[in-house]
């Protein structure tokens, strides 16, 4: 064998080892993120269905065609004068309610609680409310974004993204070696489950390669963003703060003509489709209008217009189309990751392609177990690969369901506590197991070398 061929062979072995070990140790994480991500792309649609059918909150058509919510907002401010933040989420479609997302101090509870108040945007009246943190939409988002773990859950998800990128790239590099004379998309005719799973693993892996790589890289960035931004000294774009001009209490209770705000937005930023309106509570006497521009692939609600409460004149405007490449690149990550720029069809494609990484982690694990049994010559192993895979999958589902039930029926804080304990115990166990296994293998290797 020539020196060059030898090096190529050694590289392939290294790629295969990386694919094998990274996949094995992070497979469960990738599987969980794949499943939760496939559901997470539909969060707005799921939430709207819940608001409509569970809370029976809907809007009648507005006589003027513009959402009406001013009286409802005034009544909420009177009811909770010491609220600490307020954001009005405008309906996306006719029939949907406007939502006042308010952080308040309920009389019967200690501490601040974030509430959603549903407003009939045709009749301008409050038709329902819920604790925002305990909602299913919040569960779905928090589980995908940080596994419901408050300390380093987000970073773990980011590391999951890096792991998926590593297995995708190494998978591509060893693809030819593993296909040998097999043609895409042929599956070998056999009853050997290891071969069947291996064929499907290769077929789906290579077919959804680009998608999984994009999801992996954007997911890694979104998860590790706080650390990366600190290390690389990247400043968050679009963080304008209006100057303080009055007392905070006076600012909170200042009257706002919301129809005038929407009219000013249309004049100052005609392409903006306003979705979030946030009046200031810190004394800056301003209203931040956030929204989208049709046809743009950027993070939702990132275009901004800040206007003054007195006179409704513009203070600041952020049109992402006019920003530098750095800003555009920064704000494209989330949109590309969640696929919310092409309607329901694109979301469905995202969900289907997103599930492939879950299938790949399961099929990879099954192949590993079959291969291990074969290597040991142990055809009568106490547990079959299918049983082991089934038990792991059920445990993952049980974790997701239990946390969902605690979050929905007891509370977000309690769910986060349980999830934190489970995840950290598993993490410590996994690291300890890997270290012990590494030491044992090294010692065994040295002993065998000594014998020979």
């Amino acid at each position, binding site marked *: 064998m020539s020196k060059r061929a030898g090096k190529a062979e050694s590289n392939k072995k290294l790629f295969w080892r990386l694919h094998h070990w990274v996949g094995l140790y992070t497979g469960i994480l990738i599987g969980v993120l794949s499943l939760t991500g496939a559901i997470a792309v539909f969060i707005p649609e799921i939430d709207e269905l819940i608001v409509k059918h569970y809370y029976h909150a809907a809007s009648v058509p507005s006589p003027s065609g513009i959402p009406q919510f001013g009286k409802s907002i005034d009544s909420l401010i009177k009811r909770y004068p010491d609220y600490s933040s307020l954001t009005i989420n405008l309906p996306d479609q006719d029939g949907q309610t406007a939502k006042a997302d308010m952080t308040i101090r309920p009389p019967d509870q200690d501490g601040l609680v974030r509430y959603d108040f549903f407003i009939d945007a045709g009749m301008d009246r409050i038709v329902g409310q819920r604790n925002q943190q305990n909602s299913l939409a919040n569960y779905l988002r928090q589980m995908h974004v940080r596994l419901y773990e408050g300390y380093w859950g987000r970073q773990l998800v980011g590391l999951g993204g890096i792991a998926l990128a590593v297995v995708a790239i190494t998978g591509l590099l060893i693809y030819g070696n593993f296909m040998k*004379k097999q043609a*895409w998309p042929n599956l070998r005719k056999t009853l050997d489950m290891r071969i069947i799973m291996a064929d499907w693993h290769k077929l789906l892996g290579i077919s959804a390669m680009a998608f999984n790589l994009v999801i992996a890289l954007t997911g890694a960035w979104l998860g590790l963003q706080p650390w990366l931004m600190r290390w690389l000294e990247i400043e968050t774009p679009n963080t304008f703060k209006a100057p303080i001009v009055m007392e905070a209490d006076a600012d909170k209770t200042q009257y706002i003509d919301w129809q005038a705000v929407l009219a000013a937005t249309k004049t100052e930023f005609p392409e903006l489709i306003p979705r979030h309106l946030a009046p200031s509570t810190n004394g800056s006497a301003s209203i931040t209008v956030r929204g989208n521009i049709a046809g743009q692939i950027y993070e939702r609600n990132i275009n901004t217009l800040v206007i003054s409460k007195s006179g409704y004149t513009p203070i600041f405007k952020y049109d992402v189309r006019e920003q530098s490449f750095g800003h555009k690149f920064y704000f494209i990550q989330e949109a590309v990751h969640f696929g919310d720029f*092409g309607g329901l069809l*694109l979301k469905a494609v995202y969900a289907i392609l997103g599930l492939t990484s879950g299938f790949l982690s399961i099929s990879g694990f099954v192949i590993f177990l079959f291969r291990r049994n074969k290597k040991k010559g142990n055809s009568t192993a106490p547990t079959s690969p299918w049983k082991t895979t089934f038990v792991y999958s059920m445990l993952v589902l049980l974790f997701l369901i239990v946390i969902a039930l605690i979050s929905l029926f007891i509370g977000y804080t309690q769910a986060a506590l349980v999830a934190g304990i489970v995840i950290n115990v598993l993490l410590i166990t996994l690291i300890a197991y890997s270290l012990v296994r590494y030491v044992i293998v090294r010692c065994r290797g040295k002993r065998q070398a000594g014998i020979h």
Partner: protein
Amino acid sequence: MKHTKKHYHALIEHYLVPAALFLLNINLIHIIYAYFNGSWDRLWHLVALTIAFAALGSAVLLKNQRLLWCSMGYYLLLLAYS
């Protein structure tokens, strides 16, 4: 009896088909986005994207080397200039 065994082409199977599938993934998302946002004023762009999708899809299925190269080059040019 005459056996007709299809010749296995490693360059196509190991490199060109994965590369075309890679671009087909991107093209699929691109085409849905373009149709959803209805840039009908740029009809040529929608037509060009649809042709790219059809070309890449058929190239992957037919595994014709020239078609694979051409469809990938065409879509890359379309990405660069649109």
